């Protein structure tokens, strides 16, 4: 592919686009960005079930998650640090669950330090992890790929 450069140095608009046309495209894109942002903040990010919304207790847990900077080591949906495991489904994975998660929070293990939180704060963190687990599944293991380079269920793991 090649571009044709039409440069006339010294002319009023050497790019050849026209300043007004350039501004129209630029601000048009910004208008679309605002519309996209509005949709993303609302309908684009609704959760399918009530349990995925954070309760008061889960919100306290989320605040603790931030306070202890857990994201330095852990991930949700593969987003975060790399020292520890992804926690998206730590509550819903077979063999793990609330008791398992609470034990780690209270006592630590290996590289994970004990957070030094009270028992009810550990419950808040577990409530938060429960709400996260209710939002979906990660990692995605549905290998149903399409010719377009996508996978049919881009965020579910339904067998």
């Amino acid at each position: 592919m090649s571009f044709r450069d039409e440069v006339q140095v010294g002319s009023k608009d050497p790019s050849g686009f026209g300043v007004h046309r350039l501004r129209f495209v630029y601000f048009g894109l910004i208008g679309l960005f605002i519309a996209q942002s509005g949709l993303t903040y609302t309908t684009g990010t609704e959760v399918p079930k009530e349990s995925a919304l954070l309760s008061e207790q889960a919100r306290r847990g989320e605040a603790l998650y931030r306070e202890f900077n857990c994201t330095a080591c852990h991930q949700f949906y593969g987003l975060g640090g790399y020292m520890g495991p992804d926690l998206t489904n730590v509550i819903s994975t077979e063999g793990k669950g609330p008791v398992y998660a609470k034990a780690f929070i209270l006592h630590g293990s290996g590289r994970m330090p004990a957070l030094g939180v009270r028992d009810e704060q550990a419950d808040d963190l577990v409530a938060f992890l429960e709400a996260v687990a209710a939002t979906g599944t990660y990692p995605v293991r549905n290998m149903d790929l399409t010719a377009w380079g996508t996978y049919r269920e881009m965020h579910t793991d339904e067998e």
Partner: protein
Amino acid sequence: MKSEWTPAKGFVVAGLVALLCGALFGVIGSWQHVIPGVVDAIPFVKSRPLHVSLVIAWIFLTAVGGVYHYLPKIVGAPLHSTRLAWLHLAIFIGTGMAIMASYFMGRFGGREYWEFPPVLGIPIAASWLLFIYNFFLTANKHKGPWPAYLWMWATGIVFFLITFAEANLYLFPHFTGNMVRELTVQWKAYGALTGSWNMLVYGTAMVVMERASGNTAIARSKTAFLLFGLGFTNLLFGWAHHIYPVPSALWIRVLAYAISMTEWIILARMIQQWRSTLEEGKQGQGSMTGRFLFASEIWVFLNLGLALLISVPAINLFTHGTHITVAHAMGSTIGINTTILFASVFFISGASITKNLRMGFWLFNGSLLLFWLCLVGAGMVKGYYTVLSDLHFQVIMERIRPFIVGFAISGVGLFVGLSMLVWDGIQALLNLPNSLEDLAAHHAIDTELPRSPASVNGRAVHQGSSTTARP
């Protein structure tokens, strides 16, 4: 010749110091992956944010310093207010110190990339408003249509503030009550945020190329504006390739996929022009600026190729959440942004090539290549076992250990190389003459650029991509 402090010089020197400190914490953090408990006084939960914030500070400080330095020369008039620029620097450094102190004290905001308490975002935003005011009142003195780099800088400056504000929307219950929304909006902001700092850095690259070559046509060509438009579109709409697995609406991710794929145009153009790029690279070997600009071309190629591959959802399925993402992030911030900013630093300082700089350059690039390859290798192994096996996390981490050791060792080489470059960079800046007469005697920085004929190859504008620096 006398050497005086200017806001631009202050920003760049502060940026170099931030880079060195950030790299040091990066080395500590990488070895904490290999030897748990090493440097116990600064645990990983602190070393990571110290590393990330300082490296981001390096990018912003040096890019902003470049804008303050070049803008008056471009518009042919002094900065609207030098005092405001000093105030901007003072607030930036003061806030930076407060952020470092908060990390050392274990006070976190706990957000990826902005891990400091959110109240410290207020002075950053306030100082940025001063920057916006100063930039536009100075840039408006430019006669005639703006070249592409002024558009890039203006876009980067305004969108930094927008995305910085957006990254703090989590403070409102509408966003925190729903983790899908919280994660989506968070990474929407970060995607555009890196796009905005890329606009500042790539605009600087274009200015340095223009001023080093004397060819004013490049930044005024149709190609430059087309590629700026492509980068801008990706900044606005390409962010969701970070969050394919997050269960937001499908249209969000499909739109990002489509937009991201437009950057094949940039890669195709680079391949088409590789011969002239090599030729110009040979010609640029006589200066550190030329060497770094050539190195940035290679890093753009590698990272853009990687970015395009991991933006395909079927491939992203395996690479997401693995060290390939880190390779991409570090390859972009170090390989592309840092090499361009070093080109700018050495152009501003006029440092001539020394043995120390030559060694630093090769150690930096060689170590970075090994560093990058180790991360890609670790990511491939981790992605394979995460998706296709039921192995426990710790078992997978054990399998990637050789790559992580290689990553940590090459990180030390990277730090040593950076130290050599930073040392000479600061030395040269501190000896930088200040008056225009002194500058002319010191090296050939032109205040009135020659008007060259319209022979444009458009090489300078490859860096319009936004995909090339995701967080």
